[in-house]
């Protein structure tokens, strides 16, 4: 994992019955990594997840916003089929495709302070943009 930039952070925002997630970073890739942490934080306490195993995912989409949705849905899929939680993310993009490395471990209800499953990342409040200061934002609503 590379050292995060000063602007790297994530947050949640309110959406009716569900949860909005926002990742910020010095690059689009870093904002995507932070958004992935925000997604994990919907499901469990990120700080309790050991990065014991790694999984690689690849996704494609016609624009950066749909690429964010595809990336988050790839993580949701891997969480579901592997019964894992991921607390570390690394993203590399090339044009309209993304390669991501997820690091985590099997779900342990005793240790992970579980909250709710993520059903899917939606296109609601979907935004990937860079502000005038150069900071990237990657956000959408997660259906839980």
């Amino acid at each position, binding site marked *: 994992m590379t050292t995060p930039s000063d602007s790297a952070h994530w947050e*949640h925002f*309110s*959406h*009716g*019955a*569900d*949860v909005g997630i926002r990742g910020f970073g010095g690059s689009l890739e870093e904002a995507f990594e932070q958004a992935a942490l925000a997604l994990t934080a919907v*499901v*469990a*306490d990120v700080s309790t997840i050991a990065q014991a195993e790694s999984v690689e995912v690849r996704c494609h*989409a*016609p624009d950066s916003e*749909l690429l964010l*949705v*595809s990336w988050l*849905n790839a993580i*949701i*899929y891997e969480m*579901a*089929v592997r*019964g894992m*939680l991921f607390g570390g993310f690394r993203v590399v993009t090339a044009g309209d495709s993304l390669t991501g490395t997820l690091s985590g471990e099997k*779900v342990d*209800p005793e240790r992970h*302070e*579980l*909250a*709710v*499953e993520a*059903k*899917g*990342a*939606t*296109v*609601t409040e*979907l935004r990937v943009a860079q502000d005038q200061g150069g900071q990237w934002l990657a956000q959408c*609503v997660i*259906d*839980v």
Partner: protein
Amino acid sequence: MDPQSLSRRSEYEWWIEPAGQMRVPGIIYAGEQLIQGMDEKVREQLAHVAGLPGIQRAAYAMPDAHWGYGFPIGGVAAFDPDEGGVISAGGVGFDISCGVRALRTTFRAGDLERRKAELAEALFESIPAGVGSTGAIALSESEMDGMLRGGAQWAVASGYGDAEDLERIEEGGCASGARPDCVSREAKKRQSREMGTLGSGNHYLEVQRVAEIFDPASAAAFGLQSDEIVISIHCGSRGLGHQVGTDYLKTMVIHGYRPIPDRELACAPIRSELGQQYLGAMRAATNCALANRQIITHLVRNACGEVFPDMKPTLLYDVSHNTCKIERHLVHGASRELFVHRKGATRSFGPNHPDLPRSLQSAGQPVLIGGTMGTESYILAGTGQSEQLAFSSACHGAGRAMSRTQATKRWQGRKLIEELRERGVLIRTRSYRGVAEEAPGAYKDVNVVVQTAEQAGLARRVARLVPLICVKG
């Protein structure tokens, strides 16, 4: 939402008059107070839905409507394929065929009291719930396809439940026209360990007591008596349905109907290859939900039998509140076959509707409304009037009043469980944070929602249920 921004047609009917791209009005059924508490997004989303091609009569919002994905949650919209009508993945939702099933018993609350904790444990141990939980049923590829084609009918034929259950499920327990070949390999893989699981979030399994009867004749038709025990299950199509929603939302965004005002309204003409593929996949996911609730019913019966051998829960009814179904409805006096989206809304056929089994003809369709683990739930009955009001539809629940983040700041799961125990409600969960997020105080008052549904004529109250045991995901 500002009531002044709407045109009030009666005490409980508010119109968004057609303007701009809207082809029909938007109609919200609610009292002034519920309107004031509704997100402005409901108005915006309803107006967008009213602009989709082929929409009939109006885009409707139920009293529990809130901000959703393209369509508001609590939204109803019907489309005619002859007029270019569309089907929308967001108009059905990610948890395809999520719904509520109620089982009735002849046990009274007093019969339960001595062994209530034992029953809670038996249910908690038998029905997998929560993040990462897996079921004991592993399906081969051909069994998975059989389940996706057959729904609850497949489950009964596989030994989960009784043939008599089927007439108490919408469409006899099987959505016809399901196409397992339109469901991705990923969706099937996601389901491989999830059959017979409850899920998490607002999904639950509750043992409830009939606390109040409003309509004795309908209650008798439903087999409900005061103080009797009812068991309710709220869950959906699990990972398979979520993945079908995910897959087709993306495909509809990229290849679906255009122009649309916002891509979360992504949709496809019903008479298009993509529209037909989604319909086939959505019906397969519907069958997954129906099979799942049928398997859970089987597990519930076994768990109850361990503690109370004489308790034989029978199926009262099973409703799905995230659906798109083909139904006949009147449009300008003519009967037409329409594709009715209900996103967070319950079908509410009135008495004598031809699609209801004979045993429910006199009372109308049971409309099952989930409340919260600390307050109450309701059983309503459909009205004849709801056909004209909203294509025979009613509300589906209380609706959240507060975000999950706010709820965890305000309540602690462990403390809530203790408070509820003191009030006679036993909670069983593996997630304290999940309980805090689902705190009863984080929801709107379900009493107001169902009273409004009744006053608007969408459904009528039959019974109020209070929780005794709640298994939360």
